[in-house]
């Protein structure tokens, strides 16, 4: 029982780590799900593995200091409560993760987690990333166009877009702003 349980946790953890390291958006989501499952099982086991005990029973015995074996009457309810919370949080995080991967897919144009934004060289910098925006993804594409005209008018320009270099379409020709230091 113990070995089976520990083995399954190990298997899930290993599979999760492998999938997360594959760096494809969907694999990473799956990998994080497996990691979450492994964690949940681990938390569940932290109250001691018991078979055939009542899950809830009154009056309650105070949980012993030393793991599960001093509890005679019932399974330790605390890890169950913790797991329940952890499952809910993990569920929410997985949903959020999926949204982010989809968002990145449409913004960057690749489902690889380490993908560079479209049209970038081998060592692009964050300062150029704004250029890759397609109009329909940028909420204020009209403003962005205004910025790209000759006259620079910062107030009309969404600050994030300005700062990421979108206002300066010829930024890439000017010297080498990129050092790739984000990659370190």
């Amino acid at each position: 029982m113990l070995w089976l349980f520990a083995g399954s946790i190990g298997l899930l953890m290993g599979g999760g780590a492998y999938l997360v390291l594959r760096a494809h958006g969907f694999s990473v989501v799956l990998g994080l799900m497996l990691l979450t499952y492994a964690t949940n099982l681990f938390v569940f086991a932290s109250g001691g593995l018991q078979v055939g005990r009542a899950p809830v029973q009154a009056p309650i015995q105070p949980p012993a200091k030393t793991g599960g074996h001093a509890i005679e009457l019932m399974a330790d309810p605390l890890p169950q409560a913790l797991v329940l919370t952890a499952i809910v949080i993990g569920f929410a995080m997985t949903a959020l993760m999926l949204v982010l991967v989809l968002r990145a897919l449409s913004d960057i144009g690749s489902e690889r987690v380490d993908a560079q934004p479209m049209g970038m060289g081998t060592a692009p910098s964050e300062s150029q990333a704004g250029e890759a925006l397609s109009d329909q993804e940028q909420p204020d594409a009209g403003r962005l166009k205004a910025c790209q005209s000759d006259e620079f008018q910062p107030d009309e320009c969404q600050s994030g877009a300005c700062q990421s270099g979108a206002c300066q379409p010829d930024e890439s020709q000017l010297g080498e702003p990129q050092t790739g230091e984000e990659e370190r």
Partner: protein
Amino acid sequence: MNLLLILPLALPLGLGAWLFARSGMPLRQQRRLSLMGALGQLGAAVGLLALSAEGQIAATLIGDWPVPYGIVLAADRLSALMLTLTSALALAAIAHLSLSAADTERSGRHFHALLQLQLFGLAGAFLTADLFNLFVFFEVLLIASYGLLVHGGGAARSRAALHYVVLNMVGSSLFLMGVASLYAVTGTLSLAELSDRLPELAPDQAPLAGTGLLLLTGAFALKAALVPLHAWLVPAYSAALAPVAALFAIMTKVGVYALLRLFALMPIGDAVSDATLAELPVARLPIQPLIATGALLTLAVGAIGVVVAAELRTMVAYLILVSVGTLLAGVAAGTAEGIAAGLYYLIHTTLITAGLFLLIDVISQGRARGSCLQPAQQPPAAAWLGALFLLGALAIAGLPPLSGFVGKALILEAVQDASVAGSEFGSGSGSGSGPDWMLSWTAVLGSTLLVVIGLSRAGMMLFWQGPPSTRIASGRGAYAPAATALLAASPLLALFAAPIAGYTQSLALQLLDGEDYIMAIRGLEPVDPPSAATEGIAKPVHGGPP
């Protein structure tokens, strides 16, 4: 029920929910509500700070379940200090948004709701007295921060947010495993009970407890962006909107806070020289040397990053790394002096880096090259902004007479004292094996030099090269009032260095002693004690979402 403890949580949560529900509200009104929420939180935080300054520890039972089971909120000096910093930053960030010319947060409807939820998560993380609730609040603040991070859209933000989420989710898994390991051996998750039970562990339980503590160290080091777990920080901070980045200045400090709480659980520093405690299995964990080494590496990576940064925001993000390294170098000394010095530096660095993020937002809005470090025309109001930049640069680099200098001097002194004391008394295996003080001094002073070089280069580029702007500074935000307020903290911190350092000193003693904290929590009595019949039915021991 202590209202001061409930308010910092209930206010942002309620306000956040209200703002979500009424997302069609005009932006002005949202900002006003958000500002009022942050003000209310700041008021409660200052109240807690005043209470804790007298040595009191406010504690309250949520849900009125008796002590070992119920959810406890407690505010000692450390919690009160962190909470005050958080709400001060939030106030500055919202003020900056309200005063800036561009409607930065308009691109998404839920900006202020997310901001309030972020404040809720931060306040909860600082006030909870329970390891599992710490996990829950970490998740709350992380989910909110993901939302804030991608705000404004763009490929750079999406990419940075994706990396941030993946790394933090793996970190959360490790955190939860650490929590479970500790629960398996001690049977409790309350910080007060843990610090009592960990030193009493039987030798055969020590490996699991040690594994748990090391896993927690890893998870917290990831939040604190300790090298080599720092990779998420720079892209995320330099991609985020300026007010978000300013608020995120507290996020790495959440990791530091959690590490400090972890330290308080274990016999470290002064306690290790006590021979009986040094024999404990938990005291032999290499957590202190690990953090000390990580801090030095962080200093090196951060300082090099500051010098080579091609963008102002990247540079400030690296400055955050440098500051994390510096303050952890102090904290890792493990002595009360080290922790006190590190916390003084923490106050300084949180306010100044946040101020710098807001300042460079104003600067780059007025420049043709935005945030890029290339010659261009000077920003409007260059004289005022330049003076502010000089103030911030002097403060963050740690040059006299500003607070950075005081903080770094305190840290260097504490590191040397701890190292000398460690070698004299032949302390336990826990603390003596870290890098000794020569190495720390070299790293801290060397990083200071590099930061000075990087910031001088940036300052000259921004304000001396290129023609003066023909544009006239316009708008209420053109003189960076919020950034001014944050940066003005530095001379004040230097001026009142003695009382503030005294406060952090008593904070460190309270934290390491731990006795007051345990007593305050154990002394809690439910208002309406549950009868034996109802006690076993349901136990609301966790505070997560249903």
